[in-house]
């Protein structure tokens, strides 16, 4: 039955409806536990459904394609969604009465991105993109507080709207150049008419909106502000799930420009600048979320290296990186959420004494951060390794070298985080952080993924490779 093809999307629609109903009922403050448990249960179901639909293949007319590529990313998205829900039991950053909406927006955002990864048509992509973006704009502004969230929300919104206007214009150019909105048809047009400026420039303009999602230079300016201004859980979501979606989107589009040296040149420049700028700026950050925001900018650069190789291996590397990034970034945010249990922001120095307050969180932080830094044997290393291997296959030696130098810079600030967690002592002794048993299990599971992904990434990599094949096919 064809509806099965979009079972995950339908499921998320259903979830959105459930939360919408919650929001409609009176006094939602009173039903926090019920709400949370519902959310958790539904999220678990989402993971199950998305994973179960992993092997589906097919398409809706010509605009919606369900293949391994999209399904893998849907599974990532559902996973990211689930993980973020897992760290929401307290949710001090959002007022109780707004929590149904919080869950609703999260679901809708995920839904948007799921559609994004399956869409192979400009209009659907655009609308799905807007759907996920708008949910995020609102989510960012939902935080309780004295206004910084509004500031973040407005900046995010304006930059995002401007970027999406550029995207729109780019799409118009593409359409004007070839009269097609279907990606396969556009690809066809590109291959027959690679020197059409309108097509290529349109492609580049279009990508800018996607790069915005990915927080790639120069579309990254929102990242630090939003990371800092949004509630911790929302930031966690932005930093993990949306990145996966953005990577999928960029992958889809980058395949269009595979033949063009112009396109690849641009991507190289963007990757290099993004890595360097992100890492350098992160060096001086004091706020942990801000630091992670700049590191996200840098990571966007690394992912782009994989993408710009325009080879199956490169795409596979980028897909792998998406999963890796999701995992390792999430664990950092998990620690952040647990440590900042009042819902506030966290300075790096406030991690002091973490090893005493909660050894397991300290270990998680170290694993997450070193994985982000790309130290073996973590999944982050494998991701970088694959990306660099793909780049090397294309002969980009200096690009790899620059990448490694950036890794070095990034390790400096990552290590400072580890240092704060492990070696500095707080001025007054803080109470231990209690973790529930399920949380511990989850942490262990993620740590296992991180380490196994470093030592034995074969499974994940073959998956990514097949997905990449599906993408190119």
């Amino acid at each position, binding site marked *: 039955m064809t509806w099965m093809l979009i079972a995950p999307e339908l499921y998320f629609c259903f979830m959105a409806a459930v939360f919408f109903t919650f929001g409609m009922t009176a006094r939602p403050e009173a039903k926090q536990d019920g709400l949370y448990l519902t959310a958790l249960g539904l999220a678990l179901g989402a993971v199950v459904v998305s994973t179960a639909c992993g092997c589906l293949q097919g398409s809706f007319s010509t605009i919606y394609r369900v293949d391994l590529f999209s399904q893998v990313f849907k599974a990532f998205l559902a996973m990211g969604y689930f993980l973020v829900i897992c760290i929401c039991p307290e949710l001090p950053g959002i007022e109780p009465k707004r929590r149904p909406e919080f869950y609703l927006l999260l679901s809708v955002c995920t839904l948007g991105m799921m559609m994004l990864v399956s869409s192979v048509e400009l209009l659907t992509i655009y609308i799905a993109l807007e759907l996920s973006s708008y949910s995020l704009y609102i989510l960012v502004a939902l935080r309780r507080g004295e206004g910084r969230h*509004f500031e973040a929300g407005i900046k995010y*919104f304006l930059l995002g709207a401007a970027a999406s*206007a550029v995207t729109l*214009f780019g799409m118009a150019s593409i*359409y004007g150049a070839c009269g097609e909105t279907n990606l396969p048809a556009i690809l066809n047009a590109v291959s027959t008419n690679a020197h059409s400026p309108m097509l290529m420039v349109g492609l580049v303009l279009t990508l800018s909106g996607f790069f915005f999602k990915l927080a790639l230079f120069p579309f990254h300016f929102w990242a*630090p502000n939003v990371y800092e201004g949004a509630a911790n859980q929302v930031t966690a979501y932005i930093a993990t799930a949306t990145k996966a979606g953005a990577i999928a989107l960029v992958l889809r589009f980058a395949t269009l420009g595979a033949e063009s040296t112009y396109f690849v040149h641009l991507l190289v420049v963007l990757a290099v600048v993004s890595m360097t700028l992100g890492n350098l700026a992160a060096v001086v950050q004091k706020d942990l979320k801000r630091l992670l925001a700049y590191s996200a900018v840098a990571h966007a650069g690394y992912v782009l290296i994989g993408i710009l190789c325009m080879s199956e291996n490169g795409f596979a590397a980028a897909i792998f990186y998406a999963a890796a990034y999701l995992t390792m970034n999430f664990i950092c945010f998990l620690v952040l959420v647990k440590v900042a249990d009042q819902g506030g922001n966290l300075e790096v120095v406030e991690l002091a004494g973490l090893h005493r307050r909660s050894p397991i969180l300290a270990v998680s932080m170290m694993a997450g951060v070193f994985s982000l830094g790309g130290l073996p044997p973590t999944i982050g290393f494998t991701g970088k390794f694959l990306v660099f291997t793909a780049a090397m296959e294309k002969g980009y030696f200096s690009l790899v070298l620059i990448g490694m130098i950036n890794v070095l810079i990034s390790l400096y600030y990552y290590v400072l985080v580890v240092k704060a967690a492990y070696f500095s002592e707080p001025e007054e002794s803080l109470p231990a952080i209690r973790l529930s048993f399920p949380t511990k299990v989850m942490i262990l599971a993620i740590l296992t993924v991180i380490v196994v992904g470093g030592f034995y990434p074969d499974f994940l990599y073959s998956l990514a490779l097949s997905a990449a094949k599906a993408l190119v096919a």
Partner: protein
Amino acid sequence: MIVPFSHVFILAAAVFFIGLACVLARRNLIMILIGIEIMMNAAAIAFVGGALHWGRLDGQAFVLFILGVAATEVAVGLALVVAAHRVTGSVDPDRYNLLRR
């Protein structure tokens, strides 16, 4: 026989340019929103031109959705502006610098 497609495209770009200049130059959130609206409108013009150029309806369909998105954008944007104005008492984005380090 109207005009060459390129003229439509350039017109669209010119409109886009005005919106872009507005976004970049004005220090009023509402004006910036307006600028973005103009930019989207510019894209819409290009789409309509493209649709005519190729004789296909996708471009026009696009415009339909652009209108929808524009409406949403205004709703969300203005809601944000109003809410922010309530906190800061200003619509000048330059005054929004709590997050600057």
